[in-house]
């Protein structure tokens, strides 16, 4: 059974991948997701971004639950 995750991209990252929303097969962990994305979107090679799973900031080895909303977050620049 394929697991789908819902990606949301923001700011400079949305610009680099050309879309703000994307569905992907679940690669398992955030680290694996980062590799998948950098392979598919070469513009991301030099880009800095973090992840949130279901709106919580998480690091690379975090597992991605089925159906999760995963956000790609460039450095915050509010205010």
């Amino acid at each position: 059974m394929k697991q789908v995750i819902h990606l949301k991209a923001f700011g400079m990252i949305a610009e680099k991948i050309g879309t703000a929303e994307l569905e992907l097969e679940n690669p398992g962990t955030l680290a694996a997701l980062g590799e998948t994305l950098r392979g598919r979107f070469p513009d991301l090679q030099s880009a800095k971004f973090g992840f949130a799973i279901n709106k919580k900031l998480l690091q690379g080895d975090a597992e991605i639950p089925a159906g999760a909303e995963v956000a790609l977050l460039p450095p915050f620049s509010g205010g």
Partner: protein
Amino acid sequence: MDKVRTPKNIFVQGAISPDAIAKSIANHSGKTDIGGHSIFLGQVRADEKPEGKVVAIDYTAYEEMALEKAFEIREAIFAKYPLTCMHIYHSLGEVKVGELCLFVFTSSKHRKAAMDACDELVERIKAELPVWGKEILDTEGHVWKVNV
């Protein structure tokens, strides 16, 4: 019994108007245990970049996450300082140079708590809220704002 607080919207479309600020200040005249208000306002600067001069900032946010985070910050600041009131407003969309994009407002019986809480709120908002500013240049291009 403590009042139970729930997340509230902090986002406003476009610039924050001085009149909205006046209204917010006036709303506190009935709270007669307040002795001091501290306010921070962020204003869009006409920075010169190598690519051109900034004429506006276009703000976007991961809104649901930002509101959850803002609520968490609010609660932490309320727990740390003896505040009467706290208000946070951040712009979304385009804010032109010279216009206001952030309005942080704390009130307390004594000035020190209001001031310290306001300073800490501003730092946390800038560091922790998933909000992004796209700096629109007079050359038609843009650069992404970087917080220092």
